[in-house]
């Protein structure tokens, strides 16, 4: 192969790669996309690790469902004074509107 032919061949390849701007952009875009997908897949993997599935077991003698995981047991709070836990009222801002008398409570 003559050096002239070799030069022209390489010039053709270079023009094909670097002369076609769209192709170059498309390639870069696809690499970015691939990178993002990879990062997302890794993030999902991490998130999944933070949750665990707990299986309830049915006790046929006491006819109740139980969770064997100790930190997931029902805690007995004893006698709660629910009246003391009553929500506070909602405060509104008003002017000196007339009041209505009524026996409707």
């Amino acid at each position: 192969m003559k050096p002239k032919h070799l030069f022209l061949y390489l010039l053709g390849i270079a023009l094909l790669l670097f002369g076609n701007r769209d192709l170059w952009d498309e390639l870069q875009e696809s690499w970015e996309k691939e990178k993002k997908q990879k990062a997302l897949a890794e993030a999902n993997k991490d998130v999944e690790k933070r949750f665990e599935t707990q299986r309830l077991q049915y006790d046929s003698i006491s006819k109740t469902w139980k969770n064997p995981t100790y930190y997931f047991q029902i805690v007995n709070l004893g006698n709660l004074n629910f009246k003391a836990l009553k929500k506070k009222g909602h405060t509104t801002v008003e002017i000196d509107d007339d009041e209505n008398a009524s026996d409707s409570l």
Partner: protein
Amino acid sequence: MTKMPQTAYKHYIAQTRFLFHCHIKVKIPATYPEALLNDCFAMLEAIDLQYNSYQEDSLFHQINTNAGQWVSVDEVTISLLKQTIKISELTHGSYDITAMPLIRLWGFYKENIAQIPTKEAIQNCLTQVDFSKIQIDGNRVKIEEHQELITGSFIKAYAVDQVIAMLKAQGVTDAIINAGGSTIYALTDAFHEKWNIHIPHPKKETNLAKIPLSNRCFSLSACKHQFIAIEGKKYSHILNTNTGYPAANLQVGLLSDSACLGDMLSTALFGIEAKNFQETIQRLQKVFNFEAYLIDENQHLHQHNFKSLLPC
């Protein structure tokens, strides 16, 4: 060019909570902290628990559950009892705090009432309804077996009086407490001279009149919403404890310095027969200072010294 409004509205903070089986609204100037509103409701709640006969641990409930025995109570219970007895005497028993058995007989706590009680049942029940059988000895009280006290006609108003006293002690001079629409106490000062109160029509869904209220309480007893229906006929929830039958009147409005006294008197006047209104009022006014009107079953207005009614 639009002019700016000339009136600068004063702002208030308000809260409404459900206590004493009704919605109670307390409204004070916005210059006071929200904590003061919470204190008002804490006081209402404490009085409800301590004195309401419907509350299981209250002093009046203890008197009821120990009927036939002496029960030690506090000074407040004694003074409330003495006040009710005084009004019962002045109304010749039309108002009676021992009316609970009669109220149960009429079925005010039942859902479906098929028929009115028989004459015989009412007469039997009236033997238990007698304020003169309440015995007071120092700080001890005793009612007869089968007797039962009901505080429904005054305990909410007593609580309102106590909250008003607390607000005054805190320096509040402008405020309003609307307890279920039937007990409304207004505080006013030189900068806000009156609150306006709308009085409902006894039959229609409109207002009958309005009254200015200033450092007094307006008490309303009516049967527009509070009644039982038996065989298609409406019966008022307020009973005439002399006859044992529900009062026929439509509405009583009363102005007084004390909410507690006002509620007791408006219930008492609602229970009487309209023809006895003027005579009863004259007897009561020898002891208590108040203004009142009564609208009878024929929608006739009877009034005595009630100068404040204004057309709407």
